[in-house]
């Protein structure tokens, strides 16, 4: 038992670190919320990695994967977190991509996988509906076969960054009479430029526009866009959700967040001393660091299991729950730490930069919006309550 990286793994770390240093676009930093970045900013690193053949490390090599071990992928994500890199969005790379190469036909693979890998095609996820959140299988959007096409009608919601999307993957009901709701659902790829699709951005509590409502009215989609078999979509959807959860712990990024929090707590003053020296606040930081250390080792244990050939199991639900709890606590403490200057709404500052002196420290501007925004993490990807239901079933055997 040891936590050492091998010489090969350390050499790999050096290689990716120097690649990142030499190639990461200098001007692109992760903003407080994603919509403060342009679509070009959000895909810039993805496109560079696509050229390098490093954009889809976890994929099988025949589709463009790197063949890295789980440990190498872990190193890769750590090194990217070091520079706060804006990583490829998950909707193509981590979600629909694996569904297509696992369940899609050769034409679908040839048509879609290269665009996902290169970052040239933007994907969005049409899962949730106003009446179907945690109870996803109760979704009502219909796809009715009409000759060589499906006709889609319904409404999707919480569709992240759909305002920029070229393509979407949609769960639709194809058999309303199936004995169980899970049995009548199909997984269909949709060109977002098809007539009948309307995308309406939803303003979130952080003031940003990250998610959308997507209205589908008589949207005609070629039947060849069906993934796998009709009415088997739930199987593919579940497969995708399991993929989505791995890596969701966000350990490397949270480690960076803790360092930023400590920096803030060194600058903020309490009774003439840096806030970090206050026993009450220092205790909260230490608790966060300790919980994060535990999560990191749990993730490494899971990786080691994966390396030994075990697939992602209920551990991925544990990683999701604990990882998001930590991400949220980090943003809570950051808002606490900045004090008064968590209050001004930086979006109300004149856009022309006419404030010739800054209002409060820069690090304070994003504290509240980020805290507000990160409430999403325990809700998306299967809420943390749903994750507990999964563990109930898979670990407790109930």
């Amino acid at each position, binding site marked *: *038992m040891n*936590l050492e990286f*091998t010489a090969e793994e350390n050499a790999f770390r050096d290689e990716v670190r120097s690649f990142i240093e030499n190639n990461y676009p200098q001007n692109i930093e992760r903003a407080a919320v994603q919509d403060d970045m342009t679509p070009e900013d959000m895909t810039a690193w993805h496109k560079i990695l696509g050229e390098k053949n490093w954009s889809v490390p976890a994929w099988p090599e025949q589709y463009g994967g790197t063949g890295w071990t789980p440990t190498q992928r872990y190193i890769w994500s750590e090194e990217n977190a070091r520079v706060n890199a804006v990583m490829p969005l998950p909707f193509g790379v981590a979600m629909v991509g694996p569904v297509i190469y696992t369940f899609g036909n050769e034409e679908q693979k040839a048509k879609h996988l290269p665009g996902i890998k290169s970052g040239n095609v933007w994907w969005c996820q049409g899962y949730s509906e106003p009446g179907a959140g945690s109870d996803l299988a109760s979704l009502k959007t219909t796809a009715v076969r009409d000759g060589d096409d499906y006709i889609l009608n319904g409404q999707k919601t919480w569709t992240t960054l759909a305002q920029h999307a070229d393509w979407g993957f949609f769960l639709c009901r194809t058999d309303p009479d199936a004995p169980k709701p899970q049995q009548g659902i199909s997984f269909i790829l949709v060109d977002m430029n098809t007539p009948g699709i309307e995308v309406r951005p939803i303003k979130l509590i952080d003031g940003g526009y990250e998610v959308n409502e997507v209205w589908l009215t008589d949207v005609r989609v070629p039947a060849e866009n069906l993934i796998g078999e009709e009415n088997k979509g739930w199987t593919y959807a579940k497969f995708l959700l399991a993929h989505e959860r791995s890596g969701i712990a966000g350990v490397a990024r949270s480690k960076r967040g803790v360092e930023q929090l400590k920096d803030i707590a060194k600058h903020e003053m309490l009774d003439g001393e840096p806030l970090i020296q206050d026993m009450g606040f220092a205790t909260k930081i230490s608790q966060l660091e300790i919980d994060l250390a*535990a*999560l990191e080792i749990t993730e490494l244990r899971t990786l080691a299991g994966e390396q030994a050939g075990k697939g992602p199991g209920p551990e991925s639900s544990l990683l999701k729950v*604990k990882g998001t709890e930590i991400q949220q606590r980090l943003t809570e403490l950051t808002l606490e730490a900045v004090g008064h200057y968590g209050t001004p709404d930086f979006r109300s500052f004149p856009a022309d930069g006419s404030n010739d002196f800054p209002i409060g420290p820069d690090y304070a501007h994003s504290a509240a919006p980020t805290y507000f925004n990160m409430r999403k993490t325990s809700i998306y990807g299967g809420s943390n309550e749903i994750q507990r239901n999964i563990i109930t079933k898979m670990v*407790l055997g109930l």
Partner: protein
Amino acid sequence: MDFNFSDEQNMVRDGISRLVREQYDWDTRRGIIASDAGWSPEFWAQLAELGMLAAPFSEEDGGFGGGAVETMLIMEEFGKGLVVEPFIPSVVCAGGFLKHAGTAAQKEEYLSAIIAGEKVFAFAYAEPQGRYDLANLTTTAKKDGEGYTLNGQKAVVIGAPWASHFVVTARTSGGQADQNGVSVFIIAKDAAGVSLRDYATVDGRRASEVYFENVSVSADALIGELDNGLPLIETVVDEATVAVCAEATGAMQVTHAMTLEYAKQRKQFGVPISTFQVLQHRMVDMFMEYEQSISMSYLATIKLDEGEAERKHAVSSAKVRVGQSARFVGQSAVQTHGGMGVTDETAVGSYFKRLSIIEGEFGSVDHHMRRHIKLTAAA
């Protein structure tokens, strides 16, 4: 990076696991702790015979070349069976002092006897006024010719009634809580001037208040350097802390399993209470807590051989996480068992009590949190 155990380590784990399962069920344990002696010298002899007391020592010290991982594996199984026998005081603590700082003669006299199970040690370090500060000592050892004379009182010395010898920390110079001036001695229980008040502990063990009144020892009773014993004591106590963390992970796993089993059996409102989501989620939280504790037990075990700062940081991180988990798992188990959880008739109460005491053993959550904060500030 590797979380696998070697073949030898797996043999240790399998051996101790079988022994605890076959010979230390809850009813047997009840008999042992209710007996006059309060422990099972026969079980201890079997541990010695199987080589378990030798597991964490190098071959030149008479062991099997193991270390902290072996201790972790043994203590996890001890935790599953709530074994009361003094592996931590005798093997981890006294054995640890001898391993790190014993002279050849001391090892010859004591370590081989510890490994053989012939001598049993207790670790007399705590004092009524000292809380978790290992240097806050009113027990004194004064130079007296070639040897030393000890006076003072040690608090809650676990396993003292079973012990033949003590490792004792004492002040040899300086003020009451100075970092310097602390030394470590080996004292036979039957030495003139040693007296004990024995009692049972709430978690099924035995302990004593130990008094030293003009106890004379020779110069070779000193382990390690005169006046500079604190770093050695900290090293050994960190090792013991990690051992008790491993014990907690074992106890938590069993506590969780018996809670789940109970919830499946117990019916209310016409259905098993395991069908209630509020209880399901609490049991999921118990699972996540002990998994996180296992991770920290691994981390701290691996870091025991690193430099002082890194070691202390990992050990305190682990003890905070494990202490918090132990409280949550223990309390949740009792709550889920309802009235049965607060009777002395079911095992869950015994697990809860042991987990509750582990929380404070070798430093509470608050103590280790403070140490973590200080180490972080110093880094």
